[in-house]
């Protein structure tokens, strides 16, 4: 197999191609779903194929195929070259690529065996154990839906610079949706646990499941949140959503180059409070953003985006790194072999601070503690909204009554500048990110206090 890819790269180079790369990916995919303890769906699948990307005559072209025989690969390579030749290449911007010392790296890993530890039957047993643990939390817990998705991948990456990288990658995502009911009222909370299939994943799922079961019960007594501007404390999940959705996408260099991100031209500027440092990190093995190599063969690393409030870097692939005359940050990621790599985040988080939670709350006379982010929406000018499943009223430094779901809105830079305390605790979450393509990412950080932020009540909208 390896020689076939090298011969395809050689074929492309013989045709005058400037740069070529081949990505082989084989994924064993398993999906299990149970509802109220009963197995409702199992699915398995094997997805294998090859993506070939070339830079030819100042134009990218890409082809993919499921036929990774020599003949199939050659056809895909010829397709890529043919469509590159068909391009109108009077583009004024000359495409160049940034290189690294490690470009010719070859990994010694010959792992071909599945790295996935648990069998389908074992996962099913763990799901049922998780379900009963959740149910036993409180008799008001009525409906439970649990999904377990396992991806067991093996990737080979080779390019015309000599890279020959082979990596196994495995991850599990366990989603839970729990509803509690009492006296005609109901509260629903969803959450997910993701990461590599290590010994801890199901323990973490049980911890999270029990926590959200308690949250669902608390929501039974939730009142409507007041709407308006308040001092706000974000929990770790909301900090993660702020850092990823509201800020992280604005640092992706394709948006900087196109001028759509309002962080263009802001490198070196103070865009956040001094207590704020933000990182995009490919090296955290326990998160969904773990990436030993990106899809251009760049070794995964940690990139500091904000250091003590100052914007220090954007996220790059080889092409944008060359434009900015910096090293690639290893952020070229493709959904799978069918897609060309885009600039994407890995695990993006705010670094922990030095404030204890007690100190943080003590400073709030009347405010809102916002927890369990569900989704975040943002545009590249910095306007964002974060939807949270629960919130609590803070009075005189104490958490008082539970509130229903709320939406936070604001402007990214203004909000980052309004952060006046960053906690010592730290948590990272895993999930999918969509930017045309869907990829696994992590986000998180400490809990943060924001001097003033708009909060709207969402639970009683209609």
């Amino acid at each position, binding site marked *: 197999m390896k020689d076939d890819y090298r011969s395809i790269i050689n074929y492309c180079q013989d045709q005058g191609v400037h740069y070529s790369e081949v990505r082989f990916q084989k994924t064993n995919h398993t999906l299990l779903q149970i509802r109220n303890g009963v197995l409702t769906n199992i699915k398995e699948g094997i*997805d294998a194929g090859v993506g070939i990307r070339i830079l030819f005559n100042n134009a990218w072209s890409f082809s993919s195929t499921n036929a990774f025989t020599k003949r199939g690969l050659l056809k895909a390579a010829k397709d890529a070259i043919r469509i590159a030749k068909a391009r109108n290449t009077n583009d004024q911007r000359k495409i160049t690529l940034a290189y690294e010392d490690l470009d010719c790296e070859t990994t010694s890993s010959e792992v071909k065996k599945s790295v996935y530890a648990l069998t389908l039957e074992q996962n099913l047993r763990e799901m049922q154990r998780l379900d009963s643990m959740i149910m036993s939390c409180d008799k008001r817990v009525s409906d439970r839906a649990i999904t377990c998705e396992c991806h067991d991948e093996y990737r080979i990456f080779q390019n015309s610079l000599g890279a020959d990288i082979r990596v196994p990658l495995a991850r599990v995502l366990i989603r839970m949706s729990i509803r509690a009911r009492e006296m005609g009222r109901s509260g629903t909370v969803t959450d997910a646990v993701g990461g590599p299939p290590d010994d801890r994943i199901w323990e973490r799922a049980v911890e999270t499941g029990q926590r959200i079961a308690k949250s669902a019960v608390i929501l039974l007594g939730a009142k409507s949140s007041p709407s308006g501007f308040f001092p706000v404390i974000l929990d770790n999940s909301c900090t993660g959503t702020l850092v990823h959705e509201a800020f992280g996408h604005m640092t992706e260099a394709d948006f900087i180059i196109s001028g759509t991100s309002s962080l263009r031209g802001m490198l070196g500027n103070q865009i956040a409070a001094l207590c704020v440092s933000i990182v995009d990190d490919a090296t955290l093995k326990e998160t969904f953003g773990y990436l030993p190599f990106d899809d251009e063969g760049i070794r995964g690393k940690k990139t500091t985006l904000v250091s003590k409030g100052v914007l220090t870097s954007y996220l790059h692939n080889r092409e944008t790194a060359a434009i900015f005359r910096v090293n690639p940050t290893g952020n070229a990621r493709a959904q799978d072999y069918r897609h060309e790599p885009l600039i994407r985040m890995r695990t993006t988080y705010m670094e922990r601070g030095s404030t204890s939670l007690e100190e943080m709350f003590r400073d709030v006379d009347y405010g809102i503690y916002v927890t369990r982010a569900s989704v975040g929406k943002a545009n590249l000018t910095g306007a964002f909204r974060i939807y949270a499943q629960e919130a609590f009223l803070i009075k005189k430094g104490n958490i008082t009554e539970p509130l229903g779901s709320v939406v936070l809105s604001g402007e990214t830079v203004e909000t980052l500048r309004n952060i006046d305390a960053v906690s010592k605790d730290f948590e990272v979450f895993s999930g999918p990110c969509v930017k045309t393509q869907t990829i696994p990412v992590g986000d998180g950080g400490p809990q943060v206090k924001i001097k003033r932020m708009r909060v709207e009540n969402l639970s009683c909208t209609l």
Partner: protein
Amino acid sequence: MHSLTDLTEFAVNVALQRGVNEAEAYGYMGHFTEGILKENRSVVCNSHIKTGMGVMTVKANSVGFCYTTQLEKNAIKHCVEKTIKISRTKPPDPAWCGLPEIRSASHVSRTFDPKLFKIECDEVISLSETMLESATTSAQKKLISISGGVIVAFEKFCVSNSTGGNATDKSTMMAAWLTTLAKDGIDLSNPGFKIATSRMLDVDVQSVAKESSTSAISSLGAKKVSSATLPVVVAPYAFSRLLKDAFIPFVCGDLALGRASPYIEELGKSVCIDGLSITDNGTIVGGLASSSIDAEGVATTKTDIIRDGILASFLHNTYTGNRMGVLSTGNAIRRTSNPYEDMSSVGPTNLIIDGRNNLKNDRLLEEIKRGLLIKNIVKIETGRVERVFYGTVVDGFLVENGAIKDPIGNTVIAIHMPSLLHQIVCLGSDCEQVGFPFRGAVVTPPVVLSNVKIV
């Protein structure tokens, strides 16, 4: 090289030889060519050959499913073995009613265009570059971001099952889409988005470019609308997106079976204004979701869902139809972009919205003293318990005294999904056809919704 029919029959035979009671194989192949525009230039040209097969086996009412992307006999055998293993893990489904008998179905015309089938990649790229050029020249240099593309697809699928039948369908599709952003000083527009889709080689890419850039430029200076309850004119594209989340799932048999549909007790009852009819029709000539057969090989047909305001039927595949005591309506679909990856569920083909006494489109605004015109909306989330659709308006305008006023931005609407049809007070006269990604389409005029909550 084996044909899809050979390979699906092979899978079914292997499964039967292994002792299962029933087996079904869904084989798929697609060829896609696309010219992608990003950062105001033509950046990448893609060609994809996609193949796969989903195999389902049933033994003693236990159903297993597995898929593979490798259309060769060893991989298919391995896939069948896995499927059988899964069916042993799964508890029996007492309601299992058997696979449908696959019979020959009438061909639906204008779903396959030989010109699209034979189109060369340079023509696809040329179309995307024409669209880019049209957007650039039509926008008086205000556009700062142009992204989109043109995609041409040929798809073929074959279903074989243990009743001894098999059926095949092939189709072509072309889509051109463009998202533009305009800037004037420090004012950034909403994304201007336009997509046009056809089964034939007849998409006007210049018109896509013009509508997208006009939409972006006209949204400059957008203002947020403060919380209120207002009447809203919803243009066909935005309405199709609302229907996709806030109506279509509720008339699909699988949701109805789980009693998760608000319409479960409403058959034969009035669910909207008199005169409103909603029909699903998989046999429309040239329809974006037309096909001779559905995803389990049953002939597609026409089904009245709402007839003159009265709920007449749900949509079904064989399983859900049988559970609810009716026949399949030919609405088996496979939901994902790689259709072989899923067992059949239920979904629409071409959903047609029609009414009596429709107004001319340009008269819909006349009665509105203060309201909104929404051309595009993006779902934020649908609250499962409270059944509320939250969406951000990405292309919309304030309407005052029947006239279009300021563009709106950063505005979220909330709609109680079971009430959506009740909120329709009036329909326009001119329909547009809007396709969904991964199957399904809506043919609808603009509609006027009353009492829409602006969050």
